C-alpha cells in the first residue's frame, strides 16, 4: 500500500476522532466527580443541531460553536438536577436524556436536512509543525477545533492531577463523605462537572455539523456518544489515554472509506459495524484488566450522595 494512503487514513482518523475526544473529555470530567451521564449522545445531537442553526443565521461558525456549548450545558443541567438534587437513578436519567436529545434535535432540524453550509471550520496547517514528515501530516493540517482539542487534553490532565480544585474534584468522585467532611461543597462540584461535561459534548456535536461533515442529518452522531462513554473506561478516566482511544476509534471509523478507495471489497454494512464491535471488544478487555489493577472507576461513580445517609 502506498504511503500517502496510510497518511490519509491516519490524518482523517484524527479528524474523525475529534468529536469522540471532546465528548470523552467531558464525560471524564463528569465521571471523575462521581456522576455517570449516559446522555452524551443526546447532548451531542442537540449541540450539533444548535450549532448548525446558529451558524446558518449568523454566518459565524464560532457563534454556532458557542451556542452548541451552551445547549450542551443546558441539557446536562437536566441530568445534574435529576441525579444530584433529586438523587434519581443516573442510568435512567442519562438514557432519558439521550432519547430526549434525539427527539428534540430531530424536531429542531427537520427543515435543515440537506441544507448546505458555507461557514464551516476549515483546515489551517500550522506553519512549521505541519512540515514535519508524517507527524505534520497526521496531526497539524487540521481545523482550529482539532488544535483546541489537543490543548484541552493537557489542560484537563493538569487540572485533574496538579491543581487543588482537581484534587477536590477527584475526592468528590471517590469518597464524597470524606470530601464533605473536609469542607468541600460536593453538590457545587458535581453540578459544575456535569454541566462542563455537557458543554464539551455540545462542542463535540458542533464539530460534527460544522467541521467533520458540515450539514445536518437526523441522528448524525450515529452512536459516537456511546463510543465516547466506552472510551472513558478504555482511557481509565485519564485524558491522555482518551486521546489514544479516540484516535484509534476515529481511524477504524474511516477505515471503510480507505479500503474502498484502494479497491478492497468488503460489504459496507460490515465496515459500519467495526467501531462498535471494537467498542464491545475493548470493554471486555478493559473490564477484565481493571478488575485486577488499581485503576478502577471512581469509587462513588453513579452513587447519589446523601449527607444524612452516612
Amino acid at each position, binding site marked *: 500500500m502506498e504511503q500517502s494512503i496510510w497518511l490519509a487514513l491516519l490524518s482523517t482518523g484524527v479528524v474523525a476522532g475529534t468529536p469522540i475526544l471532546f465528548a470523552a473529555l467531558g464525560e471524564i470530567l463528569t465521571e471523575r466527580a462521581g456522576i455517570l451521564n449516559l446522555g452524551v449522545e443526546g447532548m451531542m445531537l442537540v449541540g450539533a443541531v444548535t450549532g448548525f442553526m446558529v451558524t446558518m443565521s449568523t454566518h459565524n461558525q464560532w457563534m454556532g460553536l458557542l451556542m452548541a456549548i451552551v445547549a450542551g450545558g443546558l441539557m446536562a443541567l437536566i441530568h445534574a438536577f435529576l441525579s444530584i438534587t433529586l438523587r434519581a437513578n443516573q442510568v435512567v436519567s442519562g438514557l432519558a436524556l439521550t432519547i430526549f436529545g434525539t427527539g428534540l434535535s430531530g424536531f429542531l432540524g427537520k427543515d435543515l436536512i440537506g441544507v448546505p453550509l458555507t461557514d464551516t471550520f476549515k483546515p489551517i496547517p500550522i506553519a512549521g509543525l505541519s512540515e514535519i514528515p508524517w507527524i505534520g501530516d497526521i496531526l497539524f493540517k487540521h481545523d482550529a477545533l482539532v488544535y483546541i482539542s489537543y490543548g484541552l487534553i493537557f489542560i484537563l490532565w493538569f487540572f485533574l492531577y496538579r*491543581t*487543588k480544585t482537581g484534587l*477536590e474534584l*477527584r*475526592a468528590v468522585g*471517590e*469518597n464524597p463523605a*470524606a470530601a464533605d467532611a473536609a469542607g468541600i461543597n460536593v453538590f457545587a462540584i458535581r453540578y459544575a462537572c456535569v454541566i462542563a461535561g455537557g458543554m464539551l459534548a455540545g462542542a463535540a456535536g458542533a464539530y460534527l455539523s460544522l467541521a467533520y461533515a458540515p450539514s445536518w442529518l437526523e441522528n448524525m452522531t450515529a452512536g459516537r456518544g456511546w463510543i465516547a462513554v466506552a472510551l472513558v473506561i478504555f482511557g481509565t478516566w485519564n485524558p491522555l489515554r482518551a486521546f489514544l482511544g479516540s484516535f484509534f476509534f476515529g481511524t477504524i471509523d474511516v477505515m471503510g472509506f480507505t479500503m474502498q478507495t484502494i479497491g478492497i471489497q468488503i460489504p459496507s454494512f460490515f465496515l459500519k459495524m467495526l467501531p462498535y464491535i471494537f467498542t464491545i471488544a475493548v470493554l471486555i478487555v478493559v473490564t477484565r484488566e481493571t478488575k485486577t489493577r488499581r485503576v478502577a472507576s471512581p469509587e462513588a461513580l453513579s452513587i447519589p450522595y446523601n449527607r444524612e445517609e452516612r
Partner: protein
Amino acid sequence: MVEMINITKRFPGILANDRVSFSVKAGEIHALLGENGAGKSTLMSILTGLYRPDEGEIRIQGNPVDLQSPRDAVAHGIGMVHQHFKLVKPFTVAENIILGLKGIKEVYNLKSIDESVAQLSREYGLHIQPDSPIWQLSVGEQQRAEIVKILFRGAEILILDEPTAVLTPQEAKDLYKTLRKMADLGKAIIVISHKLSEVLAHTDAITVLRGGRSVGTVRTKETSEMELTRMMVGRPVMLETVKNPVNRSSKVLELHNLSALGNRGQFALKEINLDIYGGEIVGIAGVAGNGQRELAEVVAGLRAIERGQKKVDGNDLTLASPKQMIQAGVSYVPEDRLGTGLVPNLNAMENYLLKGVQKMPSGFINWKQVAQETAEVIKKYDIKVPNPKNPVKMLSGGNLQKLLLGREISGKPRLIVTMYPMRGLDVGAMETIRSLLLQERDRGAAVLLISEELEELFALSDRLAVLHGGEVMGVVDPHKTTFEDVGLMMAGKRMAAHG
C-alpha cells in the same frame, strides 16, 4: 481547655443529652464511657459542630463559643478521628491531608507538603510515609494518617471515636503511647470508648454517660472496673458468663487446606485447616479484614473455594450452593443484619418466611401459618416488634439480631456461622444473644463465632482460632492462654496449637 456546661439535645421523641456537663484539661486523656445510645456520640457531635445544642454552653479556654458547623469547630482547634475513617483511598497521605485545607495554592507543590507532613509526624512519633496511597496502608497506619490530618489543621483538642475497635492489642498500646505523648505536649485528648480495661489502663479521667445523662466523672486512679460497670449499666452485672462444660459430639464442619480469593482477586484465605465439632463454640479472633468475612462466606457457600475441601457431617460440600448448605443444616448470621441478613423493606413475617419459603410445598404462601410461627419467635426471644407488618428497618439493632438469630435457630441447624453478633448491641441484648448461642451449643450444634472483641471470644469459645493475613496462626484453648498471646497471633505470630 474545653468545658461543656448543661448541654441538652433533643431529637424527635428522644432526649439524647440531658443537662450533660463535661470538661477536659490540656495535657489530659479523658475517656467518655457509656453503652450504645448513652449519648456519647451526640455529645461529641455537638462539640465538633455537627449538631447544635438546644440548651447549654460550650467554652474553649474559658471563652464561650458558638459552633455552627464542623468548620467552626476546626477553627477552634477541635478535631475528630471518626470510627469510619474519612480518607480518599486512591490518594496519598499528604493529598488527604491537604484536601479542603485553606491556604493551599491552586497549583500546589506536593513535595514541600510531603516534607511538612513528615516533619509533623516525626514530632509526635507518628510513623507514616506521606507519599504512600491510603489503600496500601494498614488500618493502624490509616488511623495515624487521620491523626496527622487533624494535627496539621492545628487541633488542640482531639476526639477519637472507639479508636481501638479495629486495632490489635499491640497497635492499641502504641496508639495510647502516641496519645500520651500528644497530651504531654499540651493537647487535650478525648477518647470515646466502651472498653473498660483499656480506659482503666490508659486514661487520666473518665466521664460515664448513661441514658443521655452524665453519671459522673472519676479519676482513673481512684476507680475500679466494678464501679465503672455499675455506673454504665446502673446495676451490677455478671461479667462472667456461666457456661456448662463442653460436650463434644461428632465432627460437623471440616475444612482441609482450603483457599479462597477475596474481592480484589488476591488469596484471602490460605490453606485453612479447621474442624468444628457438634456441641462446641469455636471462636475466630483477628483484626477485621484478615479473612474473617471470606471464611464465613466460604462456609455459607457464598464464596467459591479455589483449592481444598469443605465437608459437613462427612459429606463433601466443597462445590455446594448456598441452598445446599442450608439444606445441610448450615445457618449464617452475617455481619450486616440489615443487608445480607434481613431485607430492610420487608416486614418481620416476610423476613421470617425468606428462609422457610421452600417449605411451602404448594408454592403458595400460607400466611396464617407464617404469622403464627413469626409470633412464636417474637414471643420466645422477647423481640420488640410494635407491628409485625412494619418494615424491619424500623427495628433497633438488638431486636433485629434477635429476629435474625431466632429465624436461624428455628430450623435447628447443625452449624451456626455468626459474624460480630454482639456488635452495636446494648448489654441486655448482648446477654440474650450470648445465652442463645450457648443454648444452641448445649443442644449439640456447632457454632463458628467470628468477633473482634477478645473478651467476648474468651468468654464464649471452647476453642479459639486466630486469623492473620488469611492464615490460621494457631488454635488455642482460651482457658489456657492470655490476651497477650492471642494479640501476638493477631499481629502475625505463629503459636503451637494446644487446644
